[in-house]
């Protein structure tokens, strides 16, 4: 899997930040900027707020729609993916379980729609879907939801792997002991392959692949969009710490947005050793493709960090 990631020429640019920092607009701009330079771009909105529809001034859906040259946009419907997942579980359970009447699983699964952890998993499933299907693109730009959910998304592979390793070890121990019992009782060594272990390994591979992708600074860039005010700066510091804790700091690319005052000084300890690109405020509202192109025409040079 790791070699496949190394060979995959596609790039994944995440845009995250506090609500209101302008990340959706910046991601839309980034899409147009890169498309103008010959990249085939898919702009995927993982934000339930779906600002892209507002920015491009047209409705979007799960099926990518062409917006300009080489730009396609899609909005992920979280509820759809949650439903899909829960239904597939329901389906598997119905097929696998023999003792149906004992347990009305359907009832349970309805409640789980809003269970903690389901949202970010739905996002992961959506992400993987598009990653698999959209092979003919050069860059996938991901407009992330507000910080909290975005961090959960980024953390999920690591967290899952921790649990999976633990569970896998426990399962292996159980199997080792079972093998001894089997051998003594029946003289044979082999047991039937343990499906649970198989599933655990499969899940492990799934998350491992994601983790490797996220941690690869060539393939992945996490753009942290922030504003020139105290709150935004403080929050960015925290996000930075958070990303460092999950080994994603090498993929971090901070972007200072709406920096109208050129002399605004960033505290040097915030992003040591980096030059932080600044984007200035636009004179007019950035709604619609032509407005976006207009801004790029004026200020496009500031977005060279994307190349």
């Amino acid at each position, binding site marked *: 899997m790791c070699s496949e990631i190394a060979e995959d020429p596609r790039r994944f640019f995440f845009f995250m930040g506090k609500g209101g920092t302008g990340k959706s607009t910046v991601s839309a701009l980034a899409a147009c900027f890169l498309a103008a330079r010959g990249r085939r771009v898919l702009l995927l909105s993982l934000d339930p707020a779906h600002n892209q529809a507002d920015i491009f001034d047209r409705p979007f859906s799960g099926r990518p729609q062409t917006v300009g040259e080489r730009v396609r946009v899609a909005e992920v419907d979280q509820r759809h993916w949650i439903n899909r997942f829960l239904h597939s579980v329901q389906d598997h359970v119905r097929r696998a379980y023999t003792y149906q009447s004992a347990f009305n699983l359907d009832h349970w699964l309805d409640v789980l729609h809003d269970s903690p952890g389901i949202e970010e998993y739905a996002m992961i499933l959506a992400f993987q879907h598009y990653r698999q299907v959209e092979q003919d693109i050069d860059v996938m730009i991901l407009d992330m939801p507000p910080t909290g959910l975005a961090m959960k998304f980024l953390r999920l592979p690591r967290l899952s792997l921790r649990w999976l390793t633990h569970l896998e070890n426990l399962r292996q121990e159980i199997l080792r002991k079972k093998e*001894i019992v089997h*051998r*003594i009782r029946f003289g044979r*060594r082999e047991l039937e392959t343990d499906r649970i272990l198989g599933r655990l390994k499969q899940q492990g591979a799934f998350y491992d692949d994601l983790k490797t992708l996220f941690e690869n600074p060539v393939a992945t860039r996490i753009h942290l969009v922030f504003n020139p005010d105290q709150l935004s700066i403080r929050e960015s510091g925290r996000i930075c710490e958070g990303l460092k804790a999950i080994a994603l700091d090498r993929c971090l690319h901070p972007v200072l947005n709406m920096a109208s005052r050129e002399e605004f000084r960033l505290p040097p300890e915030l992003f040591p050793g980096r030059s932080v690109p600044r984007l200035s405020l636009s004179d007019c509202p950035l709604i619609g493709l032509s407005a976006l192109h207009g801004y790029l025409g004026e200020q496009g040079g500031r977005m060279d960090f994307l190349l």
Partner: protein
Amino acid sequence: MDALFIMLLAFVGYLLAYRLYGRYLGSKIFQLATDAKVPARELQDGVDFVPTKKEVIFGHHFTSIAGTGPIVGPAIAVIWGWVPALLWVFLGSIVMGAVHDFGALIISMRNQGKSVSEYTSKYINPRTRFIFFIIVFLELLIITAIFGLVIAVIFAMYPGSVLPVWLEIPIAMALGYAVYKRGASVLPWSIVAVAVMYLTVWWGASAPIVMPEIAGMPATGTWTLILLTYAFFASVLPVTTLLQPRDFINSHQLLIAMGLLVLGVFVAAFTTDMAFVAPAVQASPEAAPSMWPFLFITIACGAISGFHSLVSSGTSSKQIANEKDSLFVGYGGMLTESSLSMLVIIATCAGISLGYTTKAGVSLAGVSAWSAHYSSWTAAAGLGSKISAFVVGAANMMESFGMPHAIAIVIMGVFVASFAGTTLDTATRVQRYVLSELFTSLGFESFRNKYVATFVAVAAAAALAFATGASGKGALTLWPLFGAVNQVLAALVLTVITLYLLQRGSWGWILTAIPACFMVVMTFWALVINQGMYMKQGNVLLQIINGLVLVIAAWVVVEGLLRFFATLGGTPAPAVDTAR
């Protein structure tokens, strides 16, 4: 000759009881039926619930319930004469003990193989689970203390047994390695291990190890500490490393020892003038508690033992293929153990008459040989004297068919010590879990660590052992406590069986209610007497433990009576899944 006569009479008696009373209980009272559903088939999963041949279940069940209990108890109790002990062992097992084991097995079988504490909370009420918890905790504490002392006492009296018993450890570990890591076949290799162990017996007999008195602590005290340290390490190792292989070796030892005893009685009857030299009845020997009620507390495992219900409802009930098989396993198993106790009585009361030479070089035979051990409760070495009466008596009988006396002594000493050793190891292990459960739920997180919990278990046992003197005499004061706890549990289980039969509308409940009442009365009586005695001696630790058992016993009675009268008054039987 009369010893042989008694033995044969007893065997015939057991067979008759099995065929008559046992079958009667099975078919008329419990209504066992061949075509009834059993959990082994209903819940068959190839792991726990597996229909098994009754002989195999029997072998497993019997080797699980037999241990040092049926040996030490009677060895002490013959102080009241051989007749009461024999009658209690014989009649008690037929009418109470075997019925208890049998009933416990059946009820478990008819409740999807659930364990006894689970179905007790169903038939009485859920609070009784705590009773089980506390009883087991106390019992384990007392067992660990006593059995450590038992082994220590054997080491002190029979230095020849020291080497073989310790060598059993590497032999067991080698066996464990062979079976679990290398896939060796269990039966042949365990037989090899036993053979090797008997070779070490021969070596041990010629290389006795004597523990000197260290810093004022008698040999038994030092040995006890060493043994409890061993228990600490043995119980934290995986079961397959030491404990399980020791179990195999012990099962074989048990069968061999029983065989040797029976053979010994036979041959000695014809070639010597072995006779019962113990008094027939001796209701109040010097310094001893009185026969009523203590006889019934002292002999637990040979007549009726509450702990057997745990084994009955453990694996045995999940493997019965046909309801009628439970007679063979439950009823038959207990009778077989009872026959072991009977052999012990013969050895201590008749075998000993063949005489022996004391450490001082004095030759004793006949009655004086017996009296040297039983003239008073704490004669000579307390518990040690009683055990040695068995060891010597058995060795004497074995000598009659040509086994050298010294070797026979070591074989028997090692036999008792090995079983005590495995019990010590297991009890410490289980106690660790109990303490973990108890203390972590009270908030002491450190008890999650297995070493902490094990250390506390061992330390508590050591405290109890040394509080009573860490000697044979001390162990003797603890034994009735052990018996009392065991019998409280037995009373509880008999009550459950009674309620079960009552709820089914069978008049047979009387047959289990009488034994239940009997056990309750005897246990209470003994506990009250003990409490008085401990208060006079000023032994606080024993007072607390004894007091706790008294409270539990009262609790059992109250709960049982409440439920009994509720059932008589027409409260419906427990709901849901009563199979039958």
